[in-house]
């Protein structure tokens, strides 16, 4: 019988970790998530059902440690040449069960990309923060706090807006940064975060790249307040809320790299965000395939399984085609991340623009395809019991986050067509 494993992966460049890690996560998904996930929507605030699954994945199986150097208790993925492809597989497997969990898990890595990835490892900060994640079997959460009330897209729109809209300020006072501002929506906020990576400006309104600062703030620092989680259309496993920073003081060394370099490497964060988003889409879509296949094989129409009706099969083919291509494109982008020697630095405008292109393409396909899958299922498509509607609700935000589709379009047009004013 064909399964999700029959969707193609580029076998010639997978890391040796790909399958063993993938199988560990699949086993976790089958035992800790899939049996419970239909009750996750009601658990959005308390996380009573969701939390034990996080504990198993991140704390006990140790997935929250993977990016940190080995000698600090991590798995050293940040210094390997397969951080992209291995993370892709991990994210895909988690998202197959629940893409909200996948983003919560993926975002633990996200701010760490700034300090754990070669060639720009910040050893001092790795040593500082590794214990939070590496010396416990409890789940620990990091968040990448970019979005502000006045808009998230502009903060990521570096080429044109150049950080001039960032209103969270960082002022150097002796050996400490003093941070003031209001962020909202970061994954792993809403009360659960242990460590924030905060996008700040050292000079409000400035378009100078040197004034962009990425500063780490432990969540228990005085002056940090996390609001309760928001209620959303889906993604119950990801908590998002407001964070207020009021005269928050952290050591000067908590700035990731310093003027100019913070912005440069922050673009690599965007690259990873795009890669992760494609993996979330691909993983969810593979589960849609599984559930849809069950449905169209069991349900009959005119005495035959629904899938044997030619017109229905045409749509099934389109869906399978898109999953196949999303997976190939996703792995390809992950591979480009793994081989900067061939494809250029991960923070280049080219890598960012191409990642945006793949991400928004994958998201558009997914939103349309899952909508069609639900339609083929008639009124059952709206049932929680069939899981497809959950993926439909969850996936919509993957299309909207990280600045949304229009920012993707602007960056892609800007790079390929050399537009200058978009």
């Amino acid at each position, binding site marked *: 019988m064909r399964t999700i494993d029959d969707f193609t992966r580029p076998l010639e460049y997978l890391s040796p970790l790909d399958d063993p890690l993938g199988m560990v996560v699949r086993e976790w998904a089958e035992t800790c998530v899939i049996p419970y996930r239909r009750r996750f929507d009601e658990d959005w605030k308390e996380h009573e059902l969701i939390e034990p699954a996080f504990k198993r994945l991140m704390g006990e199986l140790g997935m929250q440690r993977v990016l940190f150097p080995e000698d600090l208790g991590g798995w050293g993925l940040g210094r390997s040449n397969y951080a992209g492809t291995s993370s892709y597989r991990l994210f895909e497997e988690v998202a197959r069960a629940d893409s909200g969990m996948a983003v919560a898990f993926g975002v633990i890595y996200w701010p760490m990309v700034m300090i754990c990835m070669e060639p720009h490892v910040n050893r001092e900060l790795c040593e500082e923060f590794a214990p939070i994640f590496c010396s416990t079997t409890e789940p620990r959460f990091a968040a990448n706090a970019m979005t502000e009330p006045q808009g998230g897209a502009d903060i990521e729109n570096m080429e044109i807006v150049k950080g001039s809209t960032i209103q969270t300020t960082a002022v150097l006072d002796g050996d400490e940064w003093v941070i003031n501002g209001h962020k909202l929506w970061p994954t792993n906020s809403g009360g659960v975060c242990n460590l924030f990576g905060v996008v700040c400006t050292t000079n409000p309104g400035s378009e100078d790249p040197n004034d962009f600062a990425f500063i780490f703030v432990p969540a228990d620092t005085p002056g940090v307040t996390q609001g309760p989680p928001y209620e959303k*259309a889906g993604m119950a496993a990801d908590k998002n809320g407001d964070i207020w920073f009021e005269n928050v003081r952290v050591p000067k060394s908590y700035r990731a790299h310093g003027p100019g370099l913070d912005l440069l490497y922050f673009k690599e964060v965007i690259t990873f965000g795009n890669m992760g988003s494609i993996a979330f889409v691909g993983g969810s879509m593979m589960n849609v395939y599984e559930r849809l296949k069950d449905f169209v094989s069991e349900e009959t*129409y005119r005495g035959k399984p629904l899938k044997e009706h030619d017109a229905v099969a045409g749509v099934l083919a389109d869906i399978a085609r898109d999953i196949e291509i999303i997976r190939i494109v996703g792995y390809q982008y992950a591979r480009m991340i793994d081989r900067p020697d061939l494809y250029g630095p991960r923070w280049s405008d080219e890598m960012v623009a191409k990642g945006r292109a793949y991400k928004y393409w994958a998201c558009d396909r997914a939103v349309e395809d899952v909508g069609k899958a*639900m339609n083929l*299922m008639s009124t*059952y498509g709206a049932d*929680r019991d069939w899981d497809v509607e959950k993926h439909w609700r969850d996936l919509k935000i993957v299309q*909207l986050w990280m600045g949304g589709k229009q920012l993707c379009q602007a960056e892609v047009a800007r790079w390929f067509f050399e537009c200058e004013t978009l």
Partner: protein
Amino acid sequence: MSDHDLFPYLYEWASDMDVSLAGNLRRWAENEVMAKRLELKEDYEQLLEPAMRKLFLEIGMQRLLWPEEHGGDGHNTPAASLTITAALEQVARGDVGIALLLSSLWALQSAVAMEGAVNGEACAALAEAVAGRDEPALVSLVLPLFRDEPQAAAKHGKGGWTVEAASTRPLACGGNASLYAVLCALQGSEEEWGVLLIPGDAKGIERGDALKRTGLAADINTPVSFGKVKVPEGMCVAEGREACRAMLSWLYLGISASTVGALFASYEILKEWGDSRVIKGRGHIFKENPLTAAVMAEVAKETSLARMLTWDLARILSEPAVYGPPGQEGNHVTAAMVVHQVSQAAENAINRAMEMMASAGYAREWNLERYWRDVKALQLCLGPYELAKMDVSRYFYRASTL
């Protein structure tokens, strides 16, 4: 400017009464649902049920299409298609789930209570259940889920019919219907199909657990089994494919108009966003940005065209003398095409409106995501589009085996 002026339709088709009813229902939507939903969200007991009771009973929508001689308001001419369109646009703007309940009720009423074809026996028997003054008339339609395959069968015998079906999936209110209207494959009759009317408390009905679904919180749906349920002779209404199709055409009109109402609400939310949000950090008002304005234009276009098409369908159903009866193959296919087109346009438009609003579009607080979920769930009531296309091709290309 109200939606009525902004999104055009051929006004001359609507009567003064239709326009004034729409105005009243607009106020119902605003006062009974929209003003309270920030606090009450989708709470059935506190928000949706009281709003529905007010609409069905106090405002009296459940009596609108019912014949005067059976205690209704006597608005039971084909022109009611225009009235229900005007009404459902406004009801759905408030709540799409309530609009679905009303669409189901009106579809059934169209089958038994239309002037010139009033089914006296059925109307007398049903007056309390579907047009009474004490309880909301919740009609649960049990229709084919996959095109032309009824979920239930009815056997004709001495003294009436016996309905048998396991685990059917009603269109709506399986869990609390006052009446089930079950489209059955008829055995022992010259006609292939018929709609059997079964009171909610009939012997032999078994309801499953309430279903958790994407949207339409006003609808309490469950699977329903009918175990050898006895139905008197006169309660088989809409006998024959054409009669069943007529009821479906009215249902499709109701769903189409409800979808338009959801589009109005989505447009309003997006407009508020576009008027106030600033992007690019240089005082650019959102709606003035060409890239986003192009997407907003799509939303307006889909809304406008969906409305026009829906009113065209209403007009066709309102004039059987000109266009033929609603169950005629061509009209049924038109109704199916319109409702699928409107529904897909709405899915696209609300998807795109969410793009514009990013996380605000995804947050419960802004309500847009609620219309997104409701409109999708409403679309699924129509069954797979791929199968509906077979009816379209059958009609237009005279295909015979599809």
